[in-house]
């Protein structure tokens, strides 16, 4: 029944230059070619970025495969903010979660599937935080350098990758409480460095 | 007659009877790589011959070898079928299947690989016949020409060594016909293609070898040039009454084109001999009797 509904949905006209939301509407209508365009556009950078999170290329490939399959299944749930023509942030949240689930599968095969939460684009709340990481601000590099690797990893997982504290704890393999304190300490240090 | 056993298709004295009527009557043929055009009027035995070549029909008598094997034996027949592509006349399908599902089903019947390889092959042939965009359409929603191309796609699956096409261009528009010709001439570099048709233009464009059947017998077996040579001196154009009993038709400029099978002389004082086309030669060969307007 679901398949039938998918087939009946109106297919927008799209091409290799269409914006992500148009492609996602087409994907939701069952257009495999639209997924191919989206894959071609986003897979390379997602792969590069995941490569910094996991050194096993097979796991990265598997996570990416699952990412685009999740896109195929849940393209309809993508709701762009008005005027936003880019699904990059949304795709990243799916990709990093798929990687975590891949790593968990590898680590504990007996633990079942991740309880699936709906994929939400990293919200505006973190926009202020991501400013902390803008490369163009001169002093930032130095500030990041001054952080210990542990604090940097905590910042990366929560602010940059948009993970929840729980997910960050999973990928960093530390308790959730530790993630929270490290993030707080790191943010404080960065603010200090940038405002001084 | 040579004793070589090679050659993809070899027939010796092949006869197929329906009751007392012989649809094929002592046919001797050797077909090799490239495209062979099979010509003849309706009921000449073309489709019977095609079905024999397709292992769909056993000859009543005579010797038939396909790809070096005997289709009369079960195991050898299966081996032939693995390397055979057949587009039957008036192909029919399950109308409720999608194009993709139908070819997938055919691919299973053709024992083509695992699922992934099979689907890739289905996509490949769908692209070849220009139906890829319609792969998820149900067969009943496809036009006649599309169904014809779908059947062609089915025949092309698995890169057959022997490709049998019975009236393949029926229902195709001129553009698709050109595509079809390109496709077949490309395939013919490796495989043996037999093209049974009424479309002389397709034969002229594609075939390096022509076999013409009449009444279940082979009446011509050779190169198109040889067939045309036979017609030289029998084709005329001019004004006036072409006479009775000759095949002729009116040209757009008001003159007549006349075929004179028997006499080599001009049908009238105003007529001059012209270079025959393959169609002229074919009409002369099978002795079509017709006058104005064909």
């Amino acid at each position, binding site marked *: 029944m679901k398949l039938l509904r998918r087939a009946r949905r109106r297919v927008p006209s799209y091409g290799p230059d269409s914006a992500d939301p148009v492609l996602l509407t087409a994907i939701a209508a069952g257009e495999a070619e639209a997924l191919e365009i989206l894959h071609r556009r986003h897979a390379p950078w997602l792969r590069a970025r995941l490569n910094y999170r996991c050194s096993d290329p097979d796991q990265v490939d598997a996570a990416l495969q699952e990412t685009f399959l999740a896109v195929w299944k849940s393209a309809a749930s993508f709701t762009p903010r008005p005027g936003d023509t*880019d699904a990059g942030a949304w795709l990243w949240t799916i990709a990093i979660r798929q990687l975590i689930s891949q790593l968990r599968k590898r680590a504990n095969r007996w633990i079942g599937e991740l309880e699936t939460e709906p994929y939400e684009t990293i919200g505006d709340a973190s926009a202020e935080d991501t400013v902390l990481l803008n490369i163009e601000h001169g002093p930032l590099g130095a500030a990041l350098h001054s952080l210990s690797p542990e604090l940097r990893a905590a910042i990366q997982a929560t602010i940059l990758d948009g993970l929840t504290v729980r997910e960050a704890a999973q990928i960093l393999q530390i308790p959730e409480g530790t993630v929270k304190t490290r993030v707080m300490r790191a943010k404080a240090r960065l603010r200090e460095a940038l405002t001084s | 007659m040579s004793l070589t056993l090679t050659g993809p298709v070899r027939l010796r004295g092949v006869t197929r009877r329906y009751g007392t009527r012989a649809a094929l009557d002592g046919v001797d043929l050797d077909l090799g790589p490239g495209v062979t055009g099979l010509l003849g009027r309706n009921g000449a035995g073309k489709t019977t011959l095609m079905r024999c070549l397709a292992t769909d029909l056993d000859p009543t008598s005579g010797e038939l070898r396909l790809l070096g094997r005997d289709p009369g034996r079960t195991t050898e027949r299966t081996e032939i079928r693995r390397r055979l592509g*057949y587009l039957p006349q008036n192909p029919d399908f399950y109308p409720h299947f999608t194009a993709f599902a139908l070819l997938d089903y*055919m691919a299973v019947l053709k024992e083509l690989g695992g699922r992934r390889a099979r689907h890739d092959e289905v996509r490949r042939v769908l692209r070849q016949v220009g139906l890829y965009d319609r792969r998820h359409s149900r067969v009943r929603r496809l036009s006649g020409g599309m169904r014809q191309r779908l059947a062609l796609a089915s025949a092309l699956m698995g890169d057959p060594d022997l490709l049998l096409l019975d009236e393949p261009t029926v229902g195709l528009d001129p553009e698709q016909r050109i595509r079809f010709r390109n496709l077949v001439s490309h395939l013919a570099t490796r495989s043996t293609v037999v093209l049974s048709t009424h479309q002389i233009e397709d034969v002229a464009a594609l075939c390096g070898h022509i076999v013409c059947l009449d009444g279940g017998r082979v009446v011509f077996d050779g190169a198109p040039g040889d067939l045309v040579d036979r017609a030289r001196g029998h084709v005329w154009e001019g004004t006036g009454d072409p006479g009775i009993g000759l095949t002729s038709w009116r040209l757009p400029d008001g003159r007549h084109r006349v075929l004179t099978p028997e006499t080599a002389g001009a049908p009238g004082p105003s007529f001059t001999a012209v270079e025959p086309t393959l169609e002229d030669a074919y009409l002369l060969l099978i002795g079509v009797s017709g006058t104005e307007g064909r």
Partner: protein
Amino acid sequence: MSGWHLTPAQAHDYAARRTDEITAMSVEAHLMHCPPCRSMLPADEEWLADGWASLRDVVDRPRRGVVETLLSHTGLRAETAKLLAATPRLYQAWLGSTVVVLIAALAAAHTLPRGSLMFVFLAPVVPLVGVALAYGRGIDPAHTLASVTPMAGQRLLFLRTCAVLVPALLLCTGAGLLLPHTVTAWDAIFWLLPALTLVSGSLLLGRMMHLSVASGVVGGLWVLGLILVSLSGQGVPLGVFAPQAQMWWGVLLATLVGALVFRVRVA
């Protein structure tokens, strides 16, 4: 953002995992919101094509019908399920009408005196009719295409016969169990051996003629036999299902199946 973008060298280094951790964090923060810089990352065409091929394998395939899905859940090979599910419309009509006819027979058995006779003489013929409508030129629209494939002939015929026998035997057994006089399981399947014998007879005969014609001949013989028995005997030929007769049916069935196997092996 502020007009700052990655240089091609930076993009290249980042993609090649040569960027240090801190720069990488900054690059990533920028990439998240800058599609043009993302597209500067070098794409490995072969990797992309491979990735897409395995994705396409999942997202772009023919939808499986209900029957095919159910069949493959029973542990059959996916290919076998596909072949079994692809049946001519006539076969589907047969399946539908079998259900209707069996319901009518049951209704008759429960309401009319001696109404169960309808079932008695119907059940052995149900599979035979199914076989007649499952395979062959003129019956199966795709027959001309399918008949010259390596799977055609005995293998496809065997599959189609299974596609007939399994539902037919299940339906008839089910109906048999619901008959008013059914006490033991044997009462429900008295028709089984005759039914199988008729099917094997038509398959054997089908090697010489069109299967539908063969089934017609066998069905005709069955009816003729019943008439002859009833004319010579006491009216209703229930004797053909008696225990002694069942033994003869068994012998006949074994002979026919043996002949079938022999013919298939030899050919």
